[in-house]
Each structure stands twice: as structure tokens, then as C-alpha cells.
């Protein structure tokens, strides 16, 4: 399956954001963060979607607790 390069870079960027939150950044992460932080193909919206997608994958694998089934509209 061909993946859009903007989406691939944003997925990597999102993983870097998560590793930064967990305090597990590597020298490579910092290098890539500099690169993608200045890449016009990487945008807030795609990073947000990538974080949601990674979160869903983790939930599916049981690495994160499931989201509540009660629907709460986003504020």
C-alpha cells in the first residue's frame, strides 16, 4: 500500500511527541523532530490524526485502556 509521505512523516512526528512526553527521546528523535518541525508536509492536523491513530492501535493491542463508550462531544 502506497502511503502519503506527509502522513508517514506526521506519524513519525507523533511518535516523537509521545516519546518526548514519556521522557524517552533519542538523539535520532531530536534530529528528526528538527527536520519534520520545519517540513511543510507535516501539519498540526496530521499530527493530531496520527496521535489518534497510534492511540487506537495501542488500545487494540491492550496497551492503553479503552475509551468510554459514552459519547461526549469534543469541546
Amino acid at each position, binding site marked *: 500500500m502506497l502511503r502519503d509521505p506527509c502522513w508517514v512523516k506526521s506519524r513519525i*512526528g*507523533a511518535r*516523537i*511527541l509521545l516519546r*518526548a512526553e514519556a521522557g524517552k*527521546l533519542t538523539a535520532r*528523535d*531530536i*534530529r*528528526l*523532530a*528538527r*527536520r*519534520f*518541525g*520545519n517540513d511543510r508536509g*507535516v*501539519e*498540526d*492536523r*496530521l*499530527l*493530531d*490524526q496520527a*496521535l489518534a491513530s497510534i492511540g487506537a492501535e495501542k488500545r487494540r493491542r491492550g496497551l492503553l485502556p479503552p475509551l468510554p463508550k459514552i459519547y461526549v462531544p*469534543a469541546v
Partner: protein
Amino acid sequence: MFPPSERWHPEVRWDSPAGKMLDRVVAVLPVERAWKLIVFGSAPLQLGLDETFVSADVDITMEYPDEDVTVERCLNEAQMLKGQQDFYVEVVPRYVFNAPHDWQTRAYREQRRHVEFTFPHPVDILVAKVCRVAEKDLNAFRLVRRLTGHPTPEELIRLLRNAVDIYRPRFDEEFGGDPVANTKVVWREIFGAEIDVRAEIIRPALEERRKYFNQGEGLKDKLRAIGGG
């Protein structure tokens, strides 16, 4: 009757002046192909609510924009346009109908031989009139409210939020009324109340858009900061 939460389903009075005029339109359009016309202005109110609500013309626009020249040529040959008859058809560009973005979901469609007519819901017709609000437009508000009980102030706020672009500043070259002032006139005349258009309509509508368009705001800055700027 006919709340904006439902698709409009009137019994169209084809024997009203506007109905007869539209049947003449059907008669003059070539039968070799199908046509899709949108009828707006006061005509749908006459056709679906009160046949005595008369107007000088029947405003139509095309589902497919390039067709207006062909339609106008046919109507011209049949002498049905402005200046050719006292009660006439006006072919209007699509952008003139300033309705809420979801108006099609409420519109009523009816096929007459090879022509499909789309009649916007009365509440959408009213919203489109907010750009002008002449006395006749206020009468349209009064008529629709008296016959259907809609729109309520809450419903009209919702509808106007979905048409928020009418409140944008005009280009210097553009003509047109002042929709903010007009909305206040509608509230005063129809609901006997005041309204803060910015607080009740514009800001909430833009806030809803911002929620979608600004998803993840600041994440790229965070990424850049991790990389040292």
C-alpha cells in the same frame, strides 16, 4: 408543521400563478434532455404555502451553472422574461440564493415531465431574504410563521449560523444590504425582541468551524521545539 429538522413535503399548487408559469417553463425547454431547476424567492411560498402570496416574478437558477444561458434563451424566445410579460421568470445566478449550507437536505423535489424542480424549504427561503429584508421579505417571514409556526428564534439562530458567510464584510465593488442590521430588524419585527448577532450567531458559528480546522493546534510547534527550533 414543516419544522426545519425535516425535509419539506408540500402539496405543490400547480394551478397557482407561479405553478402555471413553471409549467410553461417545462413546455418551452427542449425535451431531448433532462433539466434541473431550483426555484427560490417568494415563488415556493406561493406554491407550497399560500397561493395568494403573489410576487412579480419567479426566480429560478440551475442545478448545473452552465445551463442558465440555454434556459434563458428558451425563455426569451417564448417571451417569458422581465420586460416581456408583467409576471415573468428571472434566471438568476446560483450565488444569489444565500441559504444555509445544508439547505439541500431540507428541499423538496418534484418532477414535471423532463424537468426536476427543487423547492427550498420555506425557512431557507427566509434566511436568503435576510440579505435584503424589505417590507415584502418581512411579510414572507410573517406568512411562514403564521402558517407553519417556524422558524422559532432558536431555529433561525441555528439556520443563520449555517449561513454565517452572509455576515462577512463586502468587497468595495459589491452591492448589498447589511445582514447584521437586517437580522436585528427581523428579530424586532418578527419576534419582538433584540438579538446580539455577533454573540448569538457569528461567534458560535466560527467557533464550530475552528474546532474542525484547528485540530491539533500547536503540535507542530512542540515538535519543532523538541528539535531545538
